């Protein structure tokens, strides 16, 4: 029973709740939104147990939507998308709670948009129809555009329109590519349908057109990831967005790009994606992202911008892991996607919390605040260490798997990527030192108050996630493994047998 309705409800519930939030009085908006997002999370939690790792696509639902074009409302979840869905529903209540005192104007609109955004993001991860995927991909753009543009910082208008136009530009070319795929499958089989499986079954006969189509998909996803040099929207958007916006941007929206590569760009165009030049380009761009992102983060005076650039570096690891296409590297990449959502989300929350007190994001405005706000300092330290990938935290497991797995495919690139881990330590530890240690030079900081219970409530689930994945990632890896293996088998048949399995018995 649960399997029949869960995804539909997960998509519909936030929309309904969003409408309710708009209708209730503004002072109740955040309460309603919190309850709604908690219900959403509660609905999604049983996915974790009912999911069958070896079961392929599950919880599928399929209704005809626009029959004339063969468009279906078709959704499902597999080992790749399961965790992204759960990450989304997990971060949403925290984002609502984290915005509690940050958002003071037009609260109803803000929380309604947040809920609509939830539908869009989950829709992207579960869509099994290319039209539905495209619609969801675009639908999440508008709420984010408003969240940045209405509730953002001083330079919010520029950031909002830059974010919108970059994404819109990439996605419209993808739209044409989707159409060409649809028509190709249609003329080949006589059945015109946007169903993912249908389009996929005809994708290998594309011939030379595959290059163009891959380029269109690549552009859309690479902007979203973002890959160097398409990353310039990201620092602006992340910095200007309100806390919840930054958390969702970093935590979930960026993953839509890497998810797109895993779900669409690689399986649909394997010959192109795994051809020498494309591999070379992507690996080099990922490496540039890792190292350049880290180096740029190092010189940022603005803490939020520093975190934004660190995202570029983290996502570089994900791309490297995906393209290396070994069992370990792909699972590692998936894990880094989750970890980045948790750790970077937590970092953005923390920066937002201190910003609410001091109204400055500049690193130099702080210093020595560990004595004033010890709890804040402790949590910031733990989260930073997880972002650096210290053993025992989630960051380590993910990046280690990526590096180990990628070494089989790209030894030199992996060796270079390892330096990115060192760079990460350099910029985050320096920043950490300048913010919470060092002498307390600014008298304004002496009156800072420590975290409130509400803020602790936001951070504790994230800390639990950090430590749990850091110490015992097996349940997650187990659920991912069959899907990752199936993907690799599909792209490079016969290579997974010889590879060590992780998650089942072995460490």
């Amino acid at each position: 029973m649960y399997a029949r309705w869960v995804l539909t409800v997960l998509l519909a519930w936030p929309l309904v709740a969003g409408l309710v939030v708009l209708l209730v009085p503004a002072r109740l908006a955040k309460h309603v939104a919190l309850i709604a997002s908690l219900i959403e999370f509660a609905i999604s939690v049983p996915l974790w147990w009912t999911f069958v790792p070896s079961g392929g696509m599950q919880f599928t639902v399929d209704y005809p939507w626009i029959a004339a074009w063969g468009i279906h409302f078709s959704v499902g979840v597999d080992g790749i998308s399961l965790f992204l869905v759960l990450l989304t529903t997990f971060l949403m209540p925290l984002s609502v709670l984290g915005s509690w005192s940050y958002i003071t104007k037009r609260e109803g609109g803000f929380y309604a948009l947040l809920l609509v955004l939830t539908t869009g993001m989950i829709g992207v991860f579960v869509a099994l129809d290319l039209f539905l995927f495209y619609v969801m991909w675009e639908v999440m753009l508008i709420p984010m555009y408003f969240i940045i543009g209405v509730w953002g910082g001083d330079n919010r208008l520029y950031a909002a329109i830059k974010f919108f136009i970059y994404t819109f530009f990439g996605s419209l070319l993808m739209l044409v590519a989707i159409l060409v795929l649809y028509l190709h499958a249609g003329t080949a089989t006589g059945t015109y349908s946007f169903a993912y499986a249908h389009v996929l079954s005809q994708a290998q006969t594309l011939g030379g057109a595959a290059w163009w189509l891959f380029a269109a998909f690549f552009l859309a996803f690479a902007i979203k990831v973002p890959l160097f040099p398409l990353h310039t929207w990201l620092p602006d958007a992340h910095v200007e967005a309100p806390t919840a916006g930054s958390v969702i941007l970093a935590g979930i929206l960026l993953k839509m790009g890497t998810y797109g590569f895993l779900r669409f760009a690689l399986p649909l165009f394997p010959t192109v994606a795994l051809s020498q030049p494309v591999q070379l380009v992507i690996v080099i761009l990922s490496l540039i992202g890792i190292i350049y992102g880290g180096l740029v983060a190092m010189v940022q005076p603005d803490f939020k911008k520093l975190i934004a650039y660190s995202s570029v570096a983290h996502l570089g690891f994900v791309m490297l892991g995906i393209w290396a296409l070994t069992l370990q590297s792909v699972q590692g990449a998936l894990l880094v996607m989750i970890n980045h959502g948790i750790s970077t989300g937590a970092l953005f929350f923390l920066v937002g919390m201190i910003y609410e007190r001091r109204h400055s994001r500049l690193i130099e405005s702080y210093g020595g605040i560990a004595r004033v706000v010890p709890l804040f300092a402790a949590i910031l330290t733990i989260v930073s260490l997880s972002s650096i990938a210290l053993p025992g935290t989630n960051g380590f497991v993910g990046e280690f798997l990526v590096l180990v797995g990628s070494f089989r495919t790209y030894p030199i690139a992996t060796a270079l990527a390892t330096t990115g881990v060192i760079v990460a330590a350099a910029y985050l530890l320096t920043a950490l030192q300048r913010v919470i240690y060092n002498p307390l030079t600014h008298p304004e900081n002496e009156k800072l108050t420590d975290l409130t219970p509400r803020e602790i409530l936001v951070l504790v689930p994230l800390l639990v996630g950090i430590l749990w994945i850091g110490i015992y990632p097996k349940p997650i890896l187990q659920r991912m493994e069959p899907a990752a293996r199936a993907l690799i088998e599909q792209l490079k048949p016969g290579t997974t047998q010889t590879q060590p399995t992780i998650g089942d018995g072995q460490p």
Partner: protein
Amino acid sequence: MNLDPSVPRDLLLSLLPELVLTAWVLVVLLFVAWRHQTARDLRITGWLTLAALVSTAIAIWWLWWNRAGVRGVVSMIAADDFRWVADWVFVGAAALTVLISIAYLEREQLLAPEYYVLLLFGTIGMMLMAAGADLMVIFLGLELMSVAVYVLAGFDRRRARSAEAALKYFLLGAFASGFLLYGIALVYGATGTTNLGMISVQLSVIRQQSAMLLAGLAMLVVGFGFKIAAVPFHMWAPDVYDGAPTPVTAFMATGVKAAAFAALFRVMYQAFAGVPVWHDIMWWLAVITMIGGNLFALGQRSLKRMLAYSSVAHAGYLLVALTAGSAQGTSAFLVYVVAYTLMSLGAFAVLIAKGRGGESDVTIDDLSGLANRRPWLAFALAVCMLSLLGFPGTAGFIGKWYILIAATSAGQNTLAAIMVLTSVVSAGYYLPVIMAMYMKPEPIEAAHVDVRLDRWANAAVAAVVVGLLLFGVWPNRLFDLAKTASDSVHAVGATEQSPSGH
């Protein structure tokens, strides 16, 4: 029901909507001659006009329901689903225009009820254009429509801009009509007929294409290109749209454009299907219209001029549907034109609310903070802008997507790519409107105090918003309608590989 135009009764039946509307125009005209003093007379005229449009729509519905058609005979009047659907668009556009005009005319002190008479005459002209199976009928319809609209453009006779708009439109329009007429004459010289079906038959007999025919075709394209405001024949559009009273602008941007396109589709498919050269002409016309319209619009600060250029850009998208050259292209055109009529009228209606007291130069920045004061109007305008941009969830997206499908399945991948790239450019001028309304503070506290619409204009805006969102999510019925309509224009038996229908 099959109609034979040589039988008087059938001929009358095939012209039923036009006759109903003409009868009503006479009623309204009589009423206006009798009562034309007060604002109340003006309002009553408005109601009569609405009644006229509703009864016309019912007449169209009756013919559509009975599947009225002229089949198998040469006739000057076409009766097919394409005509009925196009007629509905014109009548709908006219009705929405009436709704947004009622309060506008009183506010701007344009107390002349002849306004509505002209509006109805223009609508009859449009209906004749969609009905014409003969170049002469199309020309008559075009002139009837144009003359009415020339006058409407200059209706605010106290304002120099309005008079300028009327004169400019009239001079250039007359020039374009000359081109069209000369084109008809040349086509007649080449084929010996002005009937669309007979031209096609003649062309298949003659086989080789004479210079006279091609010259005639080129002139037809110029004439129509002027009416649809395609680049490079768009020069009049910004000034005329800007100067005309805003409800008239809305009517021109939607009804007039739709009518010219409907006639263009019919002429190209029923008469010149055998002359493939027009595909190349249209290809280039579409490309420069899309690029030109979008780039010019990007530089506009005035909302009205921006919408004027955006309507040029949308003519480019519709030309893509024409270039696709398939039944699919035609139904894509119909779907898009429905969406475009709604979103464009909605945008102009909100502009009317903002631009009062003769202040027609509403810049985009003047909308700053509108969402704080008038959340409903801001939301409506935002939906219209997103739909014009072609954003999923709105009818504009469905229409654009349909055109893209038609273009790509006709092998026009380059055209499709240009279309989406120019759509990205259009984000550069549609989004600032939303940005101003929602993300900028109002310049002074009282900036939007007098921004309001009366109940009828509000009803029109609500209808637009509901329509845009409904067709954006559930376009199935609209597709069915458009598909049968386009099949009725395209020669029966010409089966083609098309996704829809499977």
